[in-house]
């Protein structure tokens, strides 16, 4: 740089020269003198400009731009008196405009005045020369500042058409493209500038590095910055940016640990170097502020000062935004959340693209419970960086907070888990298998996951919490917060309360819960400030322990535990409410209401207390009082309370049923309440069911059915819905006699009964009703019989319900009626007799029922009962007649049968007698024969005797021996008889091998007549009896068969 200027003084052609030594210009007053000389001597305007620029350069570092302004303003003033120096004037105007634009950029508050100023200056320049490139570019720059990017781009391109290598236009265009985010185009233009003017100041390598950085080419960016630094070691921009890069590298979780420390150190030294070089650079201030902030809370003040300094010196929005963000963070760490929020909001406005700022803004919004706004910010971050761990975690937590976004939360947690697993498998220990929570090492995430799942999936929540606790336990010097134990215990407790958990499992869970509660009681915090907190936590744990006693059925123990808590904290509403609940459960409704009133005295806007009051009234069957309590909630506290809405709807439905005249109105009101509830919670099964019930009540059965079907698909385990669906199906089936439908609903009911609600009266009643319809339409007396049996069961369950008795009587009556209508062969006498007894029962029940005073609460119509009683009489007469008929028929049949039997018997008898006769005859003949033989024998003997006597005389000795032999043969005659007897006996015992082919009985019968008369007749008698018994046995079997077939 020259040290002296020679300014020609145009005084009457004199060649006088004003020599200005730049060394003297160090003194501000000399500038004043110089300006005065320039003005008074009428020196060319170009010198004004030159000195202005020089002064600017001279004083830029000191921030003294007044001289610059003075020179230019003076030049402009003098230009008014001169002419022919238009080009210079335009240059001056442009310089002033540029200055204004710069001021506008730096000073947001006076942005408008400065831009207006620049606009007027540029307009003046334009009016002097429309095609001046400088002016065109100046206007474009103004547009750029006003963020009119496309117009600016258009202008810059226009300028470049005039001069393709016009540097300001090239730079402007590059800037526009950079701001538009078209980094490739920007890079191209910057590189072109670099080619044209390699040593351009300020170094264009810095923006080139920035575009590289934005294109994700960090190595190239670093190279560009380094090259800029090489050329000018004092290029603070380059220094600051490299330091930022180093800082980011240090913070990146994927950087290996040792590199991290190095990067951090490097960043530190760079930033301090830059700071010593340039004490007013905003980026450097920001960096410094951030460093201080990260050093800990003691340095917050320093950080704040730095940030404010940065804010003062910052000229562009991004760095201002950064400073504001740092200030916001400081405010946050100082617990001034409101301030933090405004700062973040401001910063976000200045720099909407910064993820860090947006995240901060989202967090502050979350703190203000503006979840939906927070979510939009978080989602916009996630759309830019889908794998941002921190953001995902926050987003998941927010999703979990807002019920409508619960499904998104599940997604978010899955993504988080995947991310963690991915980052782990990238790392050294990739041993863990996917799908296993043990790979999660972030206790906070685990706790978040646990909190999210605690409502939907207790098991998953449990495992997450257990893992978190074990991480805490294994980490030295970290005590497990008692809340974690408490929460895990609560999860176990909840699991035990699940209806599907078995008794033993529940017991185990409860034991686990108790152990954990105890551990929670023992666990403590460190530090003094924790004393109060631990007291709070312990109170909660005590309350939970009391709840546990309650679940274990020890109401007394729980009661005393609640009272203990209340001694210390008399306004612990939850404990009071539980006392009320215990009383309610024990049926002490007055007592319970007193407790609830106590709770309401402390907090009269407690929705739960009001709900419980209503519940007590419902238990007490005081529907109107209950509705009042719910109305209180809906009108004064929370008009969107779904519980109250659903219950009010239910009460309306109840009114609709008891008040048939205004049924429609009540139903419509009920639908309104349910709809409101549904609007709040679109998955509310109760509200949906309520609407469907109202439809059914209004006889819109098809609508009701489709609704119930939908609900049932969504909540298949809800038996209420199933039962309601069945009800509607029965109703639909009835008019069209769609029996298969009704029959299938029976199956539904039965499945409901099987599912363990055997004591559910309504189900049994409905089942009976479905059976009744089937029995009536299909004319099946046996089904009616089951109806009566089911109703008897129902009566046993609820002996006080008179309508059940009415129905029972009706079923008995209808049974008889149906039997009467059966064809003859299908109504056995036994069933008819049973029916008559049933009719008597039925008549008596109706009679008794008809004597009661008419009242809607009876559940039946007294008048109808009387009619029914009379009708029963009528049916009984018919049945008795039928019995008579059947009896007569039966008797006739029996008589006929008896006749036939008698005839048969007679025939058999006759036959027998004939045979006997024949046998007797035979015997007689035989006997006669034997007699004859005997006589002949005797005669022969006689003859023989005679002969013997005659012969004896002749040969006495020899003949006598012979005759003695003969005499043995004669004794043998008697022996023969005996033999025959013997034979008979043998035959009886062994059967006769010789005559085995002959049936035994025949032989026996043959035998009998040979015996004495007495026993034989006896035996006959016995045989008869057996026979008769047999035939009667057959008959009873027959009738049984008839019954069977009937039953079929």
């Amino acid at each position, binding site marked *: 740089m020259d040290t002296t200027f020679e300014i020609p003084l145009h005084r009457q052609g004199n060649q006088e020269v004003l020599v200005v030594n730049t060394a003297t210009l160090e003194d501000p007053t000399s500038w004043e003198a110089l300006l005065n000389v320039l003005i008074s001597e009428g020196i060319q305007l170009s010198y004004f400009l030159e000195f202005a620029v020089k002064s600017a350069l001279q004083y830029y570092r000191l921030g003294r731009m007044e001289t610059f302004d003075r020179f230019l303003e003076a030049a402009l003033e003098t230009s008014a008196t001169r002419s022919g120096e238009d080009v210079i004037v335009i240059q001056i105007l442009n310089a002033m405009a540029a200055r204004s634009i710069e001021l506008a950029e730096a000073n947001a508050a006076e942005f408008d005045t400065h831009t207006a100023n620049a606009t007027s200056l540029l307009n003046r320049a334009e009016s002097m020369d429309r095609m001046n490139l400088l002016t065109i570019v100046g206007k474009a720059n103004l547009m750029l500042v006003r963020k009119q990017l496309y117009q600016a781009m258009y202008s810059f391109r226009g300028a470049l058409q005039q001069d393709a290598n016009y540097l300001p236009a090239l730079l402007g265009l590059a800037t526009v493209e950079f701001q538009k985010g078209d980094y490739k185009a920007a890079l191209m233009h910057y590189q072109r500038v670099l080619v044209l003017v390699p040593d351009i100041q300020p170094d264009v390598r810095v923006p080139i590095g920035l575009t590289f950085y934005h294109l994700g080419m960090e190595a190239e960016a670093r190279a560009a910055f380094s090259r800029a630094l090489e050329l000018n070691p004092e290029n603070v921009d380059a220094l600051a940016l490299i330091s930022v890069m180093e800082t980011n590298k240090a913070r990146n979780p994927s950087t290996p640990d040792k590199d991290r420390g190095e990067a951090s150190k490097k960043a530190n030294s760079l930033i301090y170097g830059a700071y010593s070089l340039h004490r007013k650079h905003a980026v450097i201030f920001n960096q410094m502020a951030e460093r201080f902030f990260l050093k800990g809370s003691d340095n917050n003040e320093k950080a704040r000062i730095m940030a404010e300094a940065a804010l003062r010196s910052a000229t562009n929005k991004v760095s201002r935004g950064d400073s504001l963000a740092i200030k916001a963070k400081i405010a946050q760490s100082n617990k001034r959340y409101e301030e933090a929020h405004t700062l973040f909001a401001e910063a976000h406005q200045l720099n909407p693209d910064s993820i860090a700022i947006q995240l901060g803004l989202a967090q502050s919004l979350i703190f203000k419970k503006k979840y939906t706004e927070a979510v939009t910010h978080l989602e916009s971050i996630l759309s830019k960086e889908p794998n941002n761990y921190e953001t995902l975690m926050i987003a998941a937590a927010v999703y979990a907070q807002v019920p409508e976004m619960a499904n998104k939360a599940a997604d978010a947690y899955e993504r988080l888990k995947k991310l963690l697993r991915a980052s782990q498998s990238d790392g050294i220990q990739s041993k863990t298998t996917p799908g296993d929570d043990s790979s999660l090492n972030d206790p906070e995430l685990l706790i978040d996951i646990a909190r999210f799942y605690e409502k939907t999936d207790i098991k998953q929540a449990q495992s997450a919490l257990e893992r978190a606790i074990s991480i805490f336990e294994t980490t030295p010097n970290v005590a497990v917060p008692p809340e974690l134990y408490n929460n895990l215990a609560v999860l176990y407790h909840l699991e035990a309360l699940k209806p599907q958990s078995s008794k033993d499992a529940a017991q185990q869970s409860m034991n686990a819960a108790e152990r954990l509660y105890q551990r929670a009681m023992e666990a403590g915090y460190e530090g003094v400030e924790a004393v109060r907190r631990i007291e709070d936590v312990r109170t909660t744990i005590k309350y939970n322990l009391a709840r546990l006693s309650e679940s274990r059925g020890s109401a007394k123990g729980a009661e005393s535990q609640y009272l203990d808590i209340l001694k210390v904290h008399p306004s612990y509403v939850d404990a009071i409410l539980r006392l009320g609940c215990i009383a*309610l459960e024990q049926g*002490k409704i007055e007592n319970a209401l007193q407790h609830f009133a106590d709770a309401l005295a402390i907090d009269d806007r407690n929705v739960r207390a009001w709900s419980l009051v209503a519940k007590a009234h419902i238990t007490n069957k005081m529907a109107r009082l209950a509705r009042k309590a719910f109305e209180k909630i809906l009108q004064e506290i929370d008009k969107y309370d779904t519980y109250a809405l659903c219950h009010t709807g239910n009460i309306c439905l109840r009114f609709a049923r008891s008040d048939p005249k205004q049924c429609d109105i009540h139903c419509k009101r009920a639908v309104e309440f349910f709809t409101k509830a549904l609007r709040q919670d679109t998955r509310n099964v109760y509200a949906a069911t309520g609407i469907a019930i109202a439809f059914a009540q209004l006889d819109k059965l098809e609508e009701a059915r489709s609704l119930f079907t939908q609900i049932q698909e969504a909540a298949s385990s809800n038996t209420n819905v199933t039962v309601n669906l069945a009800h509607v199906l029965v109703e639909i089936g009835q008019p069209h006699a769609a029996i298969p439908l009704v029959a299938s609903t029976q199956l539904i009911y039965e499945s409901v009964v099987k599912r363990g609600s055997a004591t559910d009266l309504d189900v049994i009643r409905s089942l009976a009703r479905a059976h009744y319809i089937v029995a009536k339409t299909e004319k099946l007396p046996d089904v009616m019989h089951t109806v009566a049996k089911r109703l008897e*069961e129902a009566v046993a369950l609820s*002996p006080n319900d008179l309508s059940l008795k009415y129905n029972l009587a009706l079923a008995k009556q209808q049974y008889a009626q149906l039997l009467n209508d059966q064809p003859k062969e299908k109504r056995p006498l036994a069933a008819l007799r049973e029916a008559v007894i049933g009719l008597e029962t039925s008549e008596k029940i109706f009679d008794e029922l008809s004597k009661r005073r008419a009242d809607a609460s009876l559940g039946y119509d007294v008048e109808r009962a009387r009619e029914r009683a009379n009708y029963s009489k009528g049916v009984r007469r018919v049945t008795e007649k039928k019995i008579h008929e059947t009896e007569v028929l039966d008797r006739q049949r029996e008589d006929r049968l008896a006749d036939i039997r008698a005839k048969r018997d007679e025939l058999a008898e006759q036959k027998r007698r004939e045979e006997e006769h024949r046998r007797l005859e035979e015997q007689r003949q035989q006997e006669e024969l034997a007699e004859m033989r005997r006589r002949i024998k005797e005669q022969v003997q006689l003859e023989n005797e005679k002969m013997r006597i005659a012969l004896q005389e002749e040969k006495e000795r020899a003949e006598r021996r012979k005759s003695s032999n003969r005499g043995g043969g004669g004794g043998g005659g008697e022996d023969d008889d005996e033999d025959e007897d013997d034979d008979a006996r043998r035959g009886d015992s062994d059967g006769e091998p010789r005559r085995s082919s002959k049936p035994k009985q025949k032989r026996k019968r043959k035998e009998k007549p040979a015996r004495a008369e007495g026993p034989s007749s006896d035996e006959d008698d016995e045989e008869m009896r057996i026979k008769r018994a047999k035939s009667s046995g057959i008959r009873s079997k027959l009738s049984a068969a008839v019954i069977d077939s009937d039953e079929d």
Partner: protein
Amino acid sequence: MPFTVHKVIKEAHEDGIWSVACGRRGNKVVTGSVDDTVRVWNADSMSLMHTLEGHQLGVISVDISPNGSYAVSTSLDSQIRIWDLMSHSLVKALEAGPGGVPSSSRLGANRDNQVGSVKAWSVVFSPDGRQISTGTHDGNINCWAVETGEKDRTLETRGKFVMSLAYSPNGMLLASGAENGSIHIFDVPTGKLLHSLPGHSMAIRSMTFSPDSQLLITASDDRRINIYDVHHANCLSTLAGHQSWVLSVAFSPDTTHFASGSSDKRVKVWDINSRQCIHTFDTHTDQVWGVAYNEDGSRLVSVSDDRSIAVYNVYSV
């Protein structure tokens, strides 16, 4: 194992079984069912000895006289029938209707019974065997003389429907449980109401005294079993464990246990000292309406809507 299932008699009745009683003497078990019959079983073999017919609606309650010679049963239509367990014949059919005139005719007794509002629900023999008591719809307890079939006296609870009754084994006290959960204790000699015990909010379907007459155990639809100190009229403990209505309780003669049956299909055995459930039988497939111990407390019988009778070995631990 001290607790085992000894035997299950399937299809013991043609429909659900609602009540059971074990005889103190004579070794008989009597069951009453919705199939309108009362059946008498041999307690050892559990073989059916006799089926007593005559009830028209389901048999709600049965009891056996202390000397084991009579059984009494009530049905939904308020018939009270006294049976001779030796001859298996009907001794008397009492009409629990409004007139209260007993019809002692053996034949055709089922022709002229008064039905309607329930005049007799559960039935128990007094420990001296001379009276039977029934609870009624209007909150009264009617005591009938077994000998004559006359109504001896009426005790008034001025409360709701009396669903369960129990005499203390020493014969001094009569407890009643109502549909709304209230419990009344009467002094038997004077007929005076001694105590009203709070504690249940729903119907009490069964109650039993301890053998020493000191404790009263109640089973309620509120799923809880309460143990009361009778003389001080306070509730000693509330036992939860059943997941549905508790339909029946019975005290073991060994004085240390009692059993309960519930709509949750389970039978539980409880220890009176620790007041803990010590065993759960999961034998039945439908609600358990009745439980009863045999004379020495070695066996427990339960009856259920699944038509079966289950017999368990329950040796003292």
